[in-house]
């Protein structure tokens, strides 16, 4: 009988341990290995989720432990869904989500396409481009805050240089019109490299012989781009959109550092609003209902999206 890794592992197992597990089925051994993970999953994810659902029907406040906890039924859900301010937060989140993903995919794919072309200094440029995503969001938020400063900020001076405007005549973070775009710009600056890397992986996975066959068939470069490059990179692009979508739906640190949700509530994304309800106002029951609504929204959208992604991959 030839020696396999399994027989080697069996031989190496101490006899006392071997005696104990003798008679256990493969399925039982598999369960022994998987059980700790399942236990952790239940303890860290599932139990808190069920507990949150339970709290969402109450008026519980975590800072008022002695206070009587009443079951309020669907009152918290009703309040949230009929609150016009929360719908404004949802709109701000949708604006942020849509435009960050749009720009990151557009710029990220363009950069990946350019980097994929072999040229001198290719690796150096790749390293430089990915630098922003290596920084902490809090740090990025802080230094962009200085860049956007109307009196001394470099951003305002650059815009002023090209437009001839006075640098202190506009406030990126203080203007209701500009603030939503200011957070889109910073997030795009930071996370476009991530999308670029995924697209680059997709581009490099396309075998050269497909392009060579297309050349033989005298297909133009434009046709090759739309019939080979885009369809074959699409699953990677969709994956990048999924990752960025989930990340930006729960965006918190970067925006808090930049605008704190202001001016007014213009850039108060749902995650910021949720944090205020849960840990500043201490409306735990209400915040739980809010969190469940957001969870269902993300989970529902992500499920639909993953199905679409699988269909694209099957093509």
């Amino acid at each position, binding site marked *: 009988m030839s020696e396999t890794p399994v027989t080697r592992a069996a031989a190496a197992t101490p006899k006392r341990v071997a005696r104990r597990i003798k008679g256990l089925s493969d399925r039982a051994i598999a369960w022994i290995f998987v059980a700790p993970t399942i236990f952790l999953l239940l303890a860290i994810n599932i139990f808190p989720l069920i507990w949150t659902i339970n709290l969402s029907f109450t008026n519980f406040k975590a*800072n*008022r432990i002695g206070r009587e906890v009443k079951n309020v039924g669907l009152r918290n859900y009703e309040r949230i869904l009929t609150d016009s301010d929360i719908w404004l937060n949802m709109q701000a989140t949708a604006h942020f989500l849509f435009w960050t993903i749009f720009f990151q995919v557009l710029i990220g794919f363009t950069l990946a396409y350019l980097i994929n072309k072999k040229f001198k200094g290719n690796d150096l440029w790749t390293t430089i481009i990915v630098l922003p995503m290596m920084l902490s969001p809090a740090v990025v938020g802080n230094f962009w805050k200085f860049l956007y400063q109307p009196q001394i900020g470099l951003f305002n001076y650059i815009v002023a240089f090209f437009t001839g405007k006075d640098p202190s005549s506009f*406030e990126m*973070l203080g203007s*209701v019109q500009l603030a939503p775009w200011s957070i889109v710009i910073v997030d795009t600056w930071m996370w476009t490299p991530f999308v670029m890397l995924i697209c680059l992986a997709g581009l490099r996975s396309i075998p050269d012989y497909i392009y060579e066959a297309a050349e033989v068939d005298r297909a133009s470069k434009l046709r090759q781009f739309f019939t080979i490059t885009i369809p074959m990179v699409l699953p990677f692009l969709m994956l990048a959109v999924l990752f960025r979508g989930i990340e930006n739906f729960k965006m918190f640190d970067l925006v808090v550092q930049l605008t704190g949700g*202001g001016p007014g509530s213009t850039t108060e994304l749902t995650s910021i609003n949720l944090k205020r309800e849960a840990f500043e106002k201490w*409306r735990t029951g209400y915040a739980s209902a809010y969190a469940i609504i957001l969870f269902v929204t993300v989970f529902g959208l992500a499920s639909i999206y993953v199905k679409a992604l699988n269909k694209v991959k099957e093509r």
Partner: protein
Amino acid sequence: MKNLKLASVSALTVAAASMASTAQAEDLTLCWAAWDPANALVELSKEFESQSGHNMSFEFIPWPNFADRMLNELNSGGKLCDLLIGDSQWIGGGAENGHYVKLNDFFDKEGISMSDFADATVYAYSTWPKGTPNYYALPAMGDANGWFYRKDWFARDDIKAAFKDATGRELAEPKSQKELLEIAQFFQGREIDGKTVYGASIFTERGSEGITMGVTSALYPWGFKYENTPGSYDMDGAVNSPEAVEALEFYKEFYETATPPGYTNSYMGESLDAFKSGQVAMAMNWFAFFPGLYADPNTGGDKIDFFVNPPQNQAGSTLGGQGISVVAYSDKQDAALEYIKWFANPDVQAKWWSLGGYSAHNSVLNDPGFTDSAPFAGDFLEAMGSVQDFWQEPAYAELLLAMQKRLHDYIVADQGTAQEALDKLVEDWTEVFEDEGKL
């Protein structure tokens, strides 16, 4: 043998004495915000350490995170702090949620009388329910929102002449809120020594309490009231009264016409920076910072002067300041109470003022030399005579955040009218009090 016994007894006595002293000496932690007066308190507390044998540690949290950090600590029953100098608005929650030790019996036992402290500070920092003789803190740091300005600019002949040309009156400390705005607008965008300067820096911060503290400095002089009848929670007609609307419109005009560009989210730090960098002619901030401002080598000394928040329909200043409480979850309450007893001593209070803390003790405030002891001392006394505080209810955080939102939406984000902002605020606050079972 006799010597041996004697030696043994001596050794045991020394050991017992040393054990007793070890048992009495505690490591006390005092929690407060990280700002100038906290450094003065560290200096002051050295005397307590040498007298009591206890060691003092300090946990100072930056202001923007102070409430979050400390309220989380209290809500979780944390033992980090034995003593807490908590904001005045926390007193309701501290008392009702059992975070603070009630001090009445201790005060009676130690002969500490609340009548020795300024009435306004006892009411604001120590009592819950408000105005009742139930004490949960000792007034530790009197404070109010005041103003400071570039005295050297105000004294320049060219600027004085330009001001007289522009307004028809002399350039001097404002006697009303409208004069304050007029002066700020005069300085806005003016060239002084080749540099563009601005009117004033005011509070517009969104995240914690900034804009509320700034706006109430306008609301109170206009006669703002939280309720029509105190204790009734009937806010409609009081919170959104015509006077309140006028005051809010005034603050918005101030923000739009007399502050530096980009001051959309500014609070204490930004106000100090704007003044110290020579950007603004005037700035609002807490009296607690005034000793440091006066000592500043660039903009302090004879270049700075101070004034109390100007009146409009009446005198009114926004209350700051804090009381010192013993945390109910501390295992070292006896030692913490010792600190309170020591701190209440008139001599310690006098030293507290001399180091840069704002004593609320009458022996300090009523001293004939007090008003001349610092250039801002008289203004401080005047301000403390007309202070008003925000809600101190257990649900104060909800009430505060609602006001932060409505004010920032109107003033900085320019959404809706002042009337709408205050009407919505009444709705928000009504909902909070309904949840609390008080309406």
